[in-house]
């Protein structure tokens, strides 16, 4: 039924396939890690009692009073149940960057300069956001 005209371009299919496996893999990882966290298999860095108190307060109180790291500081606390969760979250949040990489090459191959530049700029924007190098501290 589908004609050539309605077929999604090859780079769009590539993007979709990476997104599919990455998203569902990431969600499965998130659920498994969350179960590890709430069942207490790994001790949390910030106790459950403290979290339920501090989530009602501004983020700055939570960070300062509990000595919680910002940026990529969570990587140093992966042995703690609560911070292990950031592994799955980071995978989901980083998935778009991974999906963009092959389409940059696909557009480059097609000599589509405008979209190569757009895709390249998007990766830079997302990497800057992910790096945490812009902005300091919350209110």
């Amino acid at each position, binding site marked *: *039924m*589908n004609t050539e*005209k*309605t077929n*999604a*371009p090859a780079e*769009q*299919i590539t993007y*979709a*396939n990476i*997104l*599919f496996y*990455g*998203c*569902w893999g*990431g*969600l499965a990882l*998130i*659920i498994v890690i*969350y179960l590890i*966290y*709430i069942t207490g298999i790994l001790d949390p860095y910030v106790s*459950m*009692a403290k*979290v*339920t*108190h501090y*989530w*009602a307060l*501004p*983020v700055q109180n*939570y*960070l300062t009073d509990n000595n*919680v*790291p*910002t*940026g990529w500081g969570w990587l140093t606390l992966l042995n703690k149940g*609560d911070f292990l969760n*950031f592994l799955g*979250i980071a995978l*989901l*949040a*980083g*998935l*778009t*960057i991974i999906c963009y990489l092959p389409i940059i090459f696909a557009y480059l191959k097609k000599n589509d300069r405008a*979209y190569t530049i*757009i*895709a390249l700029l*998007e990766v830079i*924007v*997302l990497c800057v*956001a*992910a790096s*945490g190098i*812009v*902005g300091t*501290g*919350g*209110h």
Partner: protein
Amino acid sequence: MASILLLAAVVWASNETGLAEQVTAQMAQATGNTSELPWWAWPAILIVFCFILGIIAVLAGVGGGVLFVPLVSGFFPFHLDFVRGAGLLVALAGALAAGPGLLKRNLASLRLALPVALIASSCAIVGAFLGLALPADVVQICLGATIIGIAILLLLSKNTARPVVTKQDALGMALGIQGAYLEPATGEIVEWKTHRTLPGLLLFIVIGIMAGMFGLGAGWANVPVLNLLMGAPLKVAVGTSKFLLSITDTSAAWVYLNQGCVIPLMAIPSIIGLMAGSFVGVRLLAKAKPTFIRYMVIGVLIFAGGKALLKGLGF
């Protein structure tokens, strides 16, 4: 409506009647700083609440984030900083899950999404920092006003299934923003192209800032701009908008993540609950009465927006 949802969540979450009473009392306090509930009660309530929210969001044709942020910030004891962080992750997860199917069926177009996403995601970073730098009560007031505005927009906007685009503009043509999809109901091939591409792209500056600032998915704004202004068919506008959120929300989500605004204990059950609800919602879509649900959601948004406004004003 929100109270009914919360009550349903409580009943479902626990068989303990005492717990339900405690929850009701705490909900009444809305933002009580201390919780008498055991720690596991809130994730349990959130997962059920977000499951129901996910069903309603799909039936009403809105993203989960737009319901999640005002309702959870208004009726749960979480600070707005953490609600926005979780709201972005909720919207992001939903968009990531929907993306593959939409892209493969050509209902989301990379050629339309990529230029829009670059503008919106860059501006979402600015919005996220703006939201974190402004005092919480100011953000709460702006959020309330925006949510009420969204409700009015939903009430008044009359999207067009297939807008007539007689001539594609120069920018749209240069970027090759066009495509075709198969209409399954009729077997017809629907070809489309855009017009007014530049004003459409410029509007995504504002949309991106608002998405980042309030932690909302911005489907409510994406669809009218793509459909009514730029002339994309409604199905392509809705599909591309949903996919677009996976890119826009990524940039803002990283900002909130890096600033410590994500607490896994509350964010993860929200994501899981809302995604599970969305799956059920899609299956209920054929049987539901969308008009009734749409008006119900508009009512909830006005209520939640009003609550956020009052909270920001200190009432």
